[in-house]
């Protein structure tokens, strides 16, 4: 391709993607307009190729007129890759620095925003159990992708990932035997029902839904990296409003609130692990 054609093509693709995201928002209410563009573009181009369409306008037409098609490709816009005790040092730090403080409260509310298929939530449940926090604790686990929420609720995971999860668990300071937390089936494991008793799973969209009241701790990991700075500000604003005074916020290892407009409302508890605490004023 000649230089100018390329520039023109890339420019037009940008415009068509903006239009497509606008169309999805107007038609279905899902708002991807503030998602990091390079990423959302890759997903869209991938779907366009899979559907055997030759340009973005055709894809837009199909998305608008074929509801079934939209709901079929929707899950591809959300990346659900996750694991138990992902970044073990994060959980180790929670165990050592945060749980001892939370334990002093009469009741604890924890929100996992963007919980995907639930591995992160059960990791927290294990941690709490091992630290003796079993009563008066409520975990809200939310995601905007209903399919992954249903999986999260089931708590059934492929047996092939257990080796890695066990390794993670041990490095996260696990004090028991990881095998005590699941029962093995043929090629899968089922999370022990006792871990589920304090968890509520719910549909919640961080972009378009509201505050999730008076939380003592919010965990939102590897979700904000998919958002533009502007949307990150908006969502962290939502967290500020959802946290009680001195509430904790835990982000993914490559996410930080340092450059966000709400940064001054938090102190850093463990910068390396991206664990912050809301200031009183």
């Amino acid at each position: 391709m000649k230089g100018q054609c390329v520039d023109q093509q890339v420019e037009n693709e940008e415009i068509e993607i903006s239009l497509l995201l606008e169309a999805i928002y107007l038609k279905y209410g899902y708002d991807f307009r503030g998602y990091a563009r390079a990423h959302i573009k890759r997903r869209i181009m991938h779907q366009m190729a899979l559907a055997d369409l030759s340009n973005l306008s055709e894809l837009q037409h199909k998305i608008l007129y074929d509801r079934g098609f939209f709901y079929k490709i929707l899950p591809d816009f959300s990346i659900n890759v996750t694991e138990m005790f992902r970044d073990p040092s994060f959980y180790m730090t929670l165990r050592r620095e945060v749980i001892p403080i939370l334990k002093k409260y009469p009741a604890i509310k924890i929100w996992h925003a963007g919980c995907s298929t639930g591995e992160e939530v059960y990791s927290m449940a294990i941690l709490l159990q091992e630290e003796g926090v079993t009563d008066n604790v409520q975990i809200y686990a939310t995601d905007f992708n209903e399919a992954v929420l249903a999986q999260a609720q089931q708590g059934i995971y492929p047996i092939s990932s257990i080796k890695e999860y066990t390794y993670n668990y041990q490095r996260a300071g696990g004090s028991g035997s990881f095998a005590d937390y699941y029962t093995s089936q043929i090629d899968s494991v089922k999370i022990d029902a006792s871990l589920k008793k304090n968890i509520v799973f719910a549909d919640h969209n961080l972009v378009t839904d509201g505050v999730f009241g008076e939380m003592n701790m919010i965990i939102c990991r590897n979700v904000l990296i998919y958002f533009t700075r502007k949307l990150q500000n908006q969502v962290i604003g939502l967290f500020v409003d959802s946290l009680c005074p001195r509430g904790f916020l835990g982000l993914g290892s490559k996410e930080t609130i340092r450059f966000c407009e709400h940064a001054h409302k938090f102190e850093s508890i463990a910068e390396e692990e991206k664990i912050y605490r809301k200031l009183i004023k």
Partner: protein
Amino acid sequence: MKTMSYEAVVIGASAGGVEALSKLLPLLHPRLPMPIIVVQHMSTRSDHYLTQYLDRICQLSVKEADEKEIISPGFIYFAPSNYHLLIEMDRTFSLAVDERVSFSRPSIDVLFETAADVYGRSLIGMILTGANSDGSRGIHKIKQYGGLAVVQDPLEAEIDKMPKSAIQSTEVDYILSLDKIGEFLNQFI
């Protein structure tokens, strides 16, 4: 050659890459006017050791790319292990934890393809040693968008599969040894 100006260099390396990069990157002149952006496949549990080490031995500053960071000359950026590295139109980085692409995260293809969108014909793509074919799609797109494709000489590469696969995927502009790649880049200062 010298008349053309380039805005960025993307480099992909896999098996044997740590040695190759330790040889190539220290050769680069501190006043090189374009940023260097690197994907080196690593084991998932590796830490920041590589960038710290390279920063000590290179004349340019070496660091892991942060999400939303503005891409600037004077730096050699590395994709953090376990994250894909993407480039946005406003010349900042994005990170993603999507599935592996060609069995890899970070993936060379993901970096190269997004870089081609942003830099078009002012991009240089380089494929070094490696035992898989990640980067071949990416280097093809870079060429298609008018950029320049450089591949490490398979005869010199510790593992020649990745360079060979890149050469098969597209008509590359230069096949060079690491020393020559260093000289080639330094001519742009």
